[in-house]
């Protein structure tokens, strides 16, 4: 089982969380300006990397908050986590918990 570091509650077992998919996506401000292809890209297309992945987790059975985690999808090592929206995608300056 993964151990997920919630920035508020610390490291907790995966079963307390719900996975939220790729992190750092923001909804286009004016969807009407997008072509169908661009909209599809936002809604459906994902990076799905083999390696470092920035993703959302939801501490469903805990504090209830969403936050971002940087995890390696091959060895499952978690490199850090931070409040959602704070840019942790540059892994080096990740706040370690």
């Amino acid at each position, binding site marked *: *089982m993964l151990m997920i570091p919630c920035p508020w509650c610390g490291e907790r077992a995966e079963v307390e969380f719900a996975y939220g998919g790729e992190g750092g996506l923001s909804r286009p401000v004016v969807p009407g300006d997008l072509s169908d292809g661009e909209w599809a890209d936002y809604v459906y297309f994902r990076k*799905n990397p083999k390696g470092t992945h920035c993703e959302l987790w939801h501490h469903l059975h805990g504090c209830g908050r969403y936050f971002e985690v940087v995890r390696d999808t091959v060895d499952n090592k978690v490199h850090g986590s931070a409040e959602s929206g704070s840019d942790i995608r540059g892994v080096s300056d990740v706040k370690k918990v």
Partner: protein
Amino acid sequence: MQRYSAFSLVRHALSEHKHWRRAWRSPAPKPRYDAIIVGGGGHGLGTAYYLARHHNLKNIAVLERGWIGGGNTGRNTTIIRSNYLQEESQGLYELARKMWETLSQELNYNVMFSPRGVLNLCHDEHELKGLRRRVFANQARGVRGEFLTPREVKQFCPPMRVDCPRLPVVGASLQRNAGTARHDAVAWGYARAADRLGVDIIENCTVNGFDIRDGAVRGVRTTRGDIAAPKVALVPAGHAGVLANLAGFRLPIESRPLQALVSEPVKPCLDTVVMSGAIHGYVSQSDKGELVIGGGADSYNGYSQRGSPHVLAGSIAAVCHLFPQFRRLRMLRSWGGVVDIAPDASAILSAAPVGGIYVNCGWGTGGFKATPGSAFAFAHLVAKGEPHLKGRAFTLARFATGRLIDEHSAAAVAH
């Protein structure tokens, strides 16, 4: 190639089985092919076979990073059925299911297709409504399916408890001509038949780059050198996103761990396949006597070929609710694969945004059953550049037009 038959078995028995020849060659890669298939699972090997067989393309290579069938093809729990909800899916999965019936003869290789029936259980009123809708949708389009009451379920599958207080079985669908097959045999059978038609099967050969010029593919870079080809068909299952990334485009695919496990072998005790979407578990008994158990995919993206133990524990608990007598069995081994899940839980058979590249992926947790149909339709697409009638709805265009093929209820947990 030597044909396999009762006669050849007897003949080789007389010389103590010392003179069987290897089933396929192991050639070094040539500098150029007419078409390259990336990924030596069932779908990739099948694609090569149908390209050579029906489309008169003979100079083909299948490049496999590890050993053929070592991906999801050799890791799956082999459930074969076609009782999906949407018309498009029924067309493709039923084409495949029909092909399973004669695949052993076609390939001269026993794939051990065993139409032992597949039961899909439901445990509450809402599920019951959904399941009935699916049965009617199947019947309307010529896919075999019937609805069973709890009593009929018990008659059809006596070892199962239908009156478990926590999870009463309130009904089930049954597809009698569905069942299981031998997973490895599918890879080996297609490999042998393709090899006989001149296809080069090249193992231990990882594709790690593409030669793309003016928006069209010219070849691939591999750990065994550069290989030129005007057509490259990607059939890499969980690694679809990785290859797309190397070729400079994106896919609507997320790769997740999916696990399964088998028990110690026991005498025949279960002669059908039992699945329950609500409790995330399914079980069948292999010809070796092992109970083959699986469940839902892990929630997070992962390429580790292993998942979290609590997911497996959940599947085991579910199966033990339905079959309390299995509680005392010891488990032999568990494993995981990397499954390629699309947003609508349906496959992608499509030309890619790069000229000459085609992708076959998105089979996710349930593509073994589709192997012959997928390979057949995909070979048509690769050869002609136009989708096969049965594969037409499965292109990448659907994500922009919104014509998704939503199979979450039929595919998400059920395989």
